[in-house]
């Protein structure tokens, strides 16, 4: 069964050329472009931060490009907003859904309309699209009570209800179970055969090779290669995504052999509040004096794994062995690590506050803050300045200093260089190596695989909530985290 876009609209040819986009000092897209042919599935691949989502957010009017053109069937277009893109027949399902959980499927699909709202008519639209496309949904079901894959359906139906003929799906299978992912990919194929176009943003090679007509690989904001499916092999795709494979192992050698086991997971499974299994049956161990890197694409369960190791989450099943104190540097420091409006002295004092008794030794803490600032090169007005007054890099160095002094037996670090410039990045990574050399057990995750390889003694690749075996080479790790068979 092939499924035509509802409303029978033929998909136009969507072309982006010479797209340039800067975020502050970072060049996110550098002369990037892609052509989406009508009636095809176009897979957009690349590592984290390669620019896939940015390019498509520009196509959908969510971001304005700094340079470049967008055309539909050869006519230049300019989308000032998502509403304009919707009107032109584009639809986009983002990774984070834009749904109203307390409302029904029909209400969510109808949201944004005008005039009278007829629940029965809205339900009929949902049913009609369901019958035409196979995306069946109960129009009266409350969205918040639906499983993730059904919520994704609601997002797709929302776009189709507005006659979208070109549909952009950002990592649609990242949050789905294998059977659900299979179902969505099957639908994607049929939608294209019915005359619609699909842009599939993914870092799952198997998905892309299974359903795409065209594949485009981006790396560091540039298009590496864009060509039809027949011209791609699995290995070619891996090579294009990972870039030049350096000679030999990229792992930095450790100063001395690792010591005793400090952190250990035994058969650990973690399911989130909605019951979705994020970490499944993971066993691992980290020893004193080593940096164990975690390599994973977004949504593989790495964030939960780090919090299990740091004792910030409790496992659903299995055993976590860890010392009483584990230092933790979370990726969202403003949310999870610092008090923006409190002085640096108090941010330093936060460590161990839950167990503190009596009076706070502020004089000593002030001196300690000053000393930490000097030792960790935290540049700021002084211990009494609010954390808000510091740049992101200096905030991060302060968090690291707090977690490292006095040294805990183990340290878990999550994306510590996000948003930092090169100098600050080097400083932070240097501290991690130093901590290892002092005998700490360090767990390090970065969304940049090269950073993981550069810092770690050992790399654990994660895919779909499980650890996957790999050698400590860039290619092997890269393949493992992408879910490719070795």
């Amino acid at each position, binding site marked *: 069964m092939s499924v035509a876009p509802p409303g029978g609209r033929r998909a136009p040819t969507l072309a982006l050329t010479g797209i340039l986009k800067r975020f502050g000092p970072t060049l996110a897209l550098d002369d990037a472009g892609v052509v989406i042919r009508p009636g095809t599935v176009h897979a957009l691949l690349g590592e984290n931060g390669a620019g896939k989502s940015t390019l498509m957010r520009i196509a959908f009017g969510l971001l304005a490009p700094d340079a470049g053109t967008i055309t539909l069937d050869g006519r230049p277009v300019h989308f000032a907003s998502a509403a304009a893109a919707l009107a032109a027949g584009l639809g986009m399902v983002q990774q984070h859904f834009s749904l109203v959980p307390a409302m029904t499927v029909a209400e969510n699909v109808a949201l944004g309309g005008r005039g009278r709202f007829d629940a029965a008519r809205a339900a009929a639209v949902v049913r009609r699209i369901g019958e035409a496309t196979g995306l069946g949904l109960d129009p009266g079901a409350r969205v918040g009570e639906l499983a993730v894959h059904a919520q994704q359906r609601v997002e797709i139906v929302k776009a189709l209800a507005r006659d979208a003929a070109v549909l952009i799906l950002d990592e649609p299978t990242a949050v789905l179970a294998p059977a659900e992912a299979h179902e969505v990919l099957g639908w994607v194929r049929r939608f294209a055969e019915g005359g619609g176009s699909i842009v599939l943003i993914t870092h799952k090679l198997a998905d892309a090779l299974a359903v795409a007509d065209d594949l485009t690989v981006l790396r560091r904001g540039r298009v590496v290669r864009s060509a039809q499916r027949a011209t791609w092999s699995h290995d070619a795709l891996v090579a294009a995504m990972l870039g030049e494979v350096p000679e030999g192992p990229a792992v930095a050698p450790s100063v001395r052999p690792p010591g005793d086991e400090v952190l250990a997971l035994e058969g650990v499974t973690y399911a989130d509040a909605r019951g979705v299994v994020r970490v499944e049956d993971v066993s691992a161990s980290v020893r004193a004096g080593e940096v164990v890197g975690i390599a994973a694409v977004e949504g593989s369960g790495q964030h939960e794994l780090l919090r299990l190791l740091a004792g910030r989450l409790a496992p659903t099943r299995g055993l976590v062995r860890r010392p009483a104190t584990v230092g933790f540097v979370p990726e969202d420091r403003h949310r*999870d690590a610092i008090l923006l409006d409190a002085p640096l002295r108090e941010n330093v004092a936060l460590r161990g506050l839950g167990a503190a008794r009596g009076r706070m030794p502020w004089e000593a803490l002030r001196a300690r803050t000053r000393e930490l600032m000097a030792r960790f090169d935290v540049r700021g007005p002084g211990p009494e300045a609010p954390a808000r007054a510091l*740049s992101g*890099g200096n905030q991060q160095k302060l968090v690291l200093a707090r977690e490292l002094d006095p040294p805990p037996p183990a340290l878990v670090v999550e994306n510590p260089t996000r948003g930092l410039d090169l100098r600050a990045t080097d400083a932070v990574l240097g501290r991690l190596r130093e901590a290892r050399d002092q005998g700490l057990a360090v767990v390090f995750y970065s969304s940049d695989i090269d950073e993981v390889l550069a810092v770690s003694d050992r790399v654990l690749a994660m895919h779909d909530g499980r650890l996957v075996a790999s050698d400590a080479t860039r290619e092997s790790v890269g393949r493992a985290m992408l879910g490719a068979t070795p």
Partner: protein
Amino acid sequence: MTRHRWTGRLLLIAATGGVAALLLLAIVALAGYDAPRALGALAGGAFGSLDAVLSGTLVRATPLVLAGLAVTLAFRAGVLNIGAEGQLLAGAAAATAAGLAVTGPGPLPLVSALTAGIAGGAVVAGVAAWLRARFGVLDVISTLMLNSVAQFVVAWLVRGPLQEPLRIYPQSASLAAAARLPVLVPGSRLHLGWLMAVVLAGVGSWWLARTAAGFRLRATGLNPLAAASAGGVATGRVTAWAFVGSGMLAGLAGAVEVTGVTYALYENLSPGYGFTAIAVALLAGLEPVLVIATGLVFGALEAGASAMQRDAGVPSVLVAVVEALVILLLVLAERGRQAGWWTRRTPEAAG
């Protein structure tokens, strides 16, 4: 908050007091009253004589400072307790009941009354804290409901179990001398409650700034996620205790009003002290010691305004308008600071 910043705040408080008085007079003049006479009455009522200061301004400032401390404690912990009014009434009722019931040697009746008042406020706030912790009920809604419940319960008490023996007036019997707060300055109406308020404000600032428990409360209010993740603070427990502590202070305010000023329970015992306390706490920048200063500003304003009504015929309810404008200006200033309306923000991503 460092002493350096306290100085700046004190200037702001003084300026706000001045601006509030000017606003009041501007409205008075616009409404066609005799402005110079009104100003004379306002100043005279607030500072005109030693008795005006002691029996007027300071007596009125006492419940405002105590209730202001209650609001301060809650807000610092991120608890939106707007139920100080109800907790104050509960404290007043409990203090009256205990003060009438307990007879005994020395200060026992008074101590019982004050303790009961504190407990009364704690119980009412505790209900709201429990509803928040157990069912996730919004602080605002629960404390508003409890304000009304407390009002009706007091209305019942003064016509029922606590009504004066003759059963004519809707009020309780008068407290015996042993259950009254001693007068601080002979010949004036200034009572020990003022001293208690001042000491508690000082202790409050010290406790928040210097102790681990105080820092836990502040950290929880500033960023509960970071306090829990980076500091291992049991934030749920901290907010629940802050809520109850806030209720204790508001309850004490009610108890002090009964044992120091009215000596009996009335239905309209509080002219909205619990709500004015929000303005008092905000103007003080949620710093306990400075609550003394802001309590004085509002106490003076209210004492002056009632003199103004008496001597110049200007309605004293205008003070409410001025308080409203002060609160509005303060939330706008706070919002502006947060959103950086008048400062350039530090770029977040720069290394």
